[in-house]
């Protein structure tokens, strides 16, 4: 599978990163000086270096890099030659922008005629059509429109967005599915020329909890300490040496009251409605907290997990990046990939027995430029 990426932000880069992991050869067309991902850092010692950024090292792995200034017709013609030999072009899309006779990126109707063998996967904030198509957004704005942030955070404070660029990652993953489906279909003789992926829709698709409650009962949920209706406890809570997710995922037992009152060393409360009745506990959760929080404050994460495990409760860890990098489970599964300067990079999102995911180093800016420009100019495929 051969993929051309016209660099255009995180969602596009992560989509082609996933395609590269699935075995695609990815050619990354970048503007002079490199794209925003190269400049996003984090840099060692905060010294900017377009080849040395942490995000670039992670989500441009195994790709090839060529610099082409697509504002210039000659460069656009070379890009078009590279695209002609590819299964997929992945880029963003903005109405009317970057359209030339060689590269009709802003004109999906002409795409199939110009590139009959290549599917254009467009990833944009709001898709190619509709009243918001020209709107500008980042993840916070999309999380707001998707119904996501209204239910995140505390009831008396402002809605909270996630601490990561969530909409980019959802858009990238949706685009990867759509791109792979388009390739599979094309090889079976059914080609789509233009695939339109909207980050807004990719995230709104996850709004099950809110939509179901509204559509079934006419009830509008409000953020309430980021809890999902119903069920308490399901919060992240402080303990002696950090935090734990107090989410007692069952292992088949139904005696919440008996097990949790034992865990909290309050067997006298096992018949209390706060423990025995789910809805009572949901409503009078502060009374539950008054018992649970002091106990948690006296115990370490390890003690809590051991004891909860003995009682058949799941609970959740709340690891930070340091914990995760040293996590024995991930170690045993050989998860991490080696990056530059002994830095660990994340590994495969799916362990595949016949086609293991592939990783390579992220390219220096224009590392493959001479070879790719020459091959585009003389019409060879420029394969590495």
């Amino acid at each position: 599978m051969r993929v051309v990426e016209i660099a255009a932000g995180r969602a596009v880069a992560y989509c082609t990163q996933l395609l590269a992991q699935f075995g695609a050869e990815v050619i990354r067309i970048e503007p002079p000086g490199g794209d925003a991902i190269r400049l996003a850092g984090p840099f060692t010692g905060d010294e900017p270096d377009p080849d040395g950024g942490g995000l670039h090292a992670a989500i441009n792995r195994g790709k090839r890099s060529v610099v082409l200034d697509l504002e210039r017709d000659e460069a656009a013609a070379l890009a078009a030659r590279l695209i002609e030999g590819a299964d997929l072009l992945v880029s963003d899309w903005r109405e009317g922008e970057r359209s030339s006779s060689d590269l009709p990126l802003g004109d999906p109707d002409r795409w199939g005629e110009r590139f009959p063998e290549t599917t254009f996967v467009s990833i944009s904030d709001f898709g190619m059509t509709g009243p918001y198509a020209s709107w500008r957004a980042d993840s916070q704005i999309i999380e707001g429109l998707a119904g996501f942030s209204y239910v995140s955070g505390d009831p008396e404070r402002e809605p909270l967005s996630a601490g990561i660029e969530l909409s980019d990652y959802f858009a990238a993953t949706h685009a990867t599915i759509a791109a792979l489906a388009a390739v599979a279909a094309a090889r079976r003789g059914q080609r789509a020329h233009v695939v339109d992926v909207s980050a807004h829709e990719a995230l709104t698709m996850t709004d099950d909890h809110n939509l179901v409650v509204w559509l079934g009962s006419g009830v509008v949920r409000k953020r309430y300490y980021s809890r999902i209706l119903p069920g308490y406890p399901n919060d992240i809570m402080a303990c002696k040496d950090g935090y734990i997710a107090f989410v007692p995922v069952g292992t088949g037992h139904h005696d919440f009251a008996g097990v949790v009152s034992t865990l909290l060393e309050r067997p006298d409360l096992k018949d209390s409605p706060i423990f025995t009745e789910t809805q009572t506990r949901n409503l009078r959760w502060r009374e539950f907290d008054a018992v649970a929080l002091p106990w948690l404050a006296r115990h370490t994460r390890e003690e809590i997990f051991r004891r909860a495990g003995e009682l058949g409760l799941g609970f959740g860890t709340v690891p930070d990046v340091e914990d995760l990098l040293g996590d024995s489970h991930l170690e045993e599964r050989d998860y991490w990939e080696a990056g530059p300067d002994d830095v660990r990079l994340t590994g495969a999102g799916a362990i595949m027995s016949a086609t293991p995911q592939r990783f390579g180093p992220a390219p220096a800016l224009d590392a493959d430029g001479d070879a790719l420009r020459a091959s585009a100019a003389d019409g060879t495929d420029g394969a590495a």
Partner: protein
Amino acid sequence: MRFFEDLKIVALTQGWVGPLATRILSDLGANMVRVERAFTPGGNYGNRTLFPPRNDITGEVWNRNIYFTVRNAGTRSAMIDLGQEEGRALVRRLISEADAVVENFMPGVVARLGFDFKELHEQFPHLILLHLSGFGQTGPNAFRPANGMTMEPASGVPTVTGYHGEGPTKTGQTWVDPYSGLHGTAALIAALIHRDRTGEGQIIDVSMQEATLPVLESQFADYQRNGRHQTRDGNRRPGMVRGAYPCAGDDDWVAISLRDEAEWQAFCRASGHEAWLDDPRFGDAASRTEHHDALDELIAAWTRERDKFEIAALLQAAGAPAGPILKADEVIADPHLAAREFFDDLKIGDFGRVPIQRYLPAKFDGAAVPAKGPAPDLGADTDAVLAELGLSAAEIEDLHERRVADRASDLQSDPIAREGTQLPFEDYEEMGSVLRIDRDYAPKPL
């Protein structure tokens, strides 16, 4: 675009991560057969009995659930008793004729039922076998119970999600479920491309934790390169003016995200605050970050008396990123989603028709990928699936009589299940986790 109409997939799924993958593949055309448990009174049917719509008349909660519809629309339901060897043999036969199997139970569960993926792979090397689980099929945490609420913390994301200077928090959506389900779906299609070329199937092991960790790539890099733990800062981002601001209305908010100088200037001009452009506190990105608290107060004073939709439209027209923060009913009514036909009206049992979101909202040459239809009634396709396996009408009838396989009409109304799942929304409204209840709300008629 039903690209995969030639595919047959067996779904042994529950919760969200598994059904998400199987609904997308069904939407893409696959003949998706869900194997479901035979009915037991008072039984827990997961999505089929979670949060049933109000006005339940028939007691058949399992056929009128919106959660179940969202996650399983267009699939088929075969009710086969896996507690009986004969039922397990039928499902093995179903699998042998399929192209793929998707499961998301605790590691080891499907093997104990007789569907060990390694054995299936040896016996039927064409099969694509997808495991989805919290921590993967191997390793010391493999058997740790997991769901979306535990896997968001386990992915490390709460370390950067929360209000400034306070503890980590989850978001209000269990997004790691769908996110990792998407990764599993992509892997299955990649495996299909490989199989189309070579004939070779494979086993895929998706760990929800591992699929999600790449969203923290910058945080991993900063810690390893600079020893820095990035932490929680509400809605802010370094170098940006970014926040959620109160508006006129009932708990209404607008999100504003100004990423660069041009967007900052566009915002100041559109909001009528050109004077801020000359304010030394806001002269460049660094000083705006330093004085973000003061700026937030000024912005809120402007937004507080205005409508969130009007603010967003005004700022967007000027090139400044903004958007209303929507409640559930407003998401359903969003004009952009409507123009893009993001929702399809689907029938929910005897409840009515409601708009159900697309699970693969991408458009292919302008054509959408809607669900094939409503979710199946429990056991609706049992007979058809058995007939497709070559069983005669008499053999199927015999299986029914011995309760190896059930059909929808074998089920009885279950008032216990109905009673047990109603939620006290009025109490939640008083407590504050429900904003409002629209007592006139009704679904569209059937």
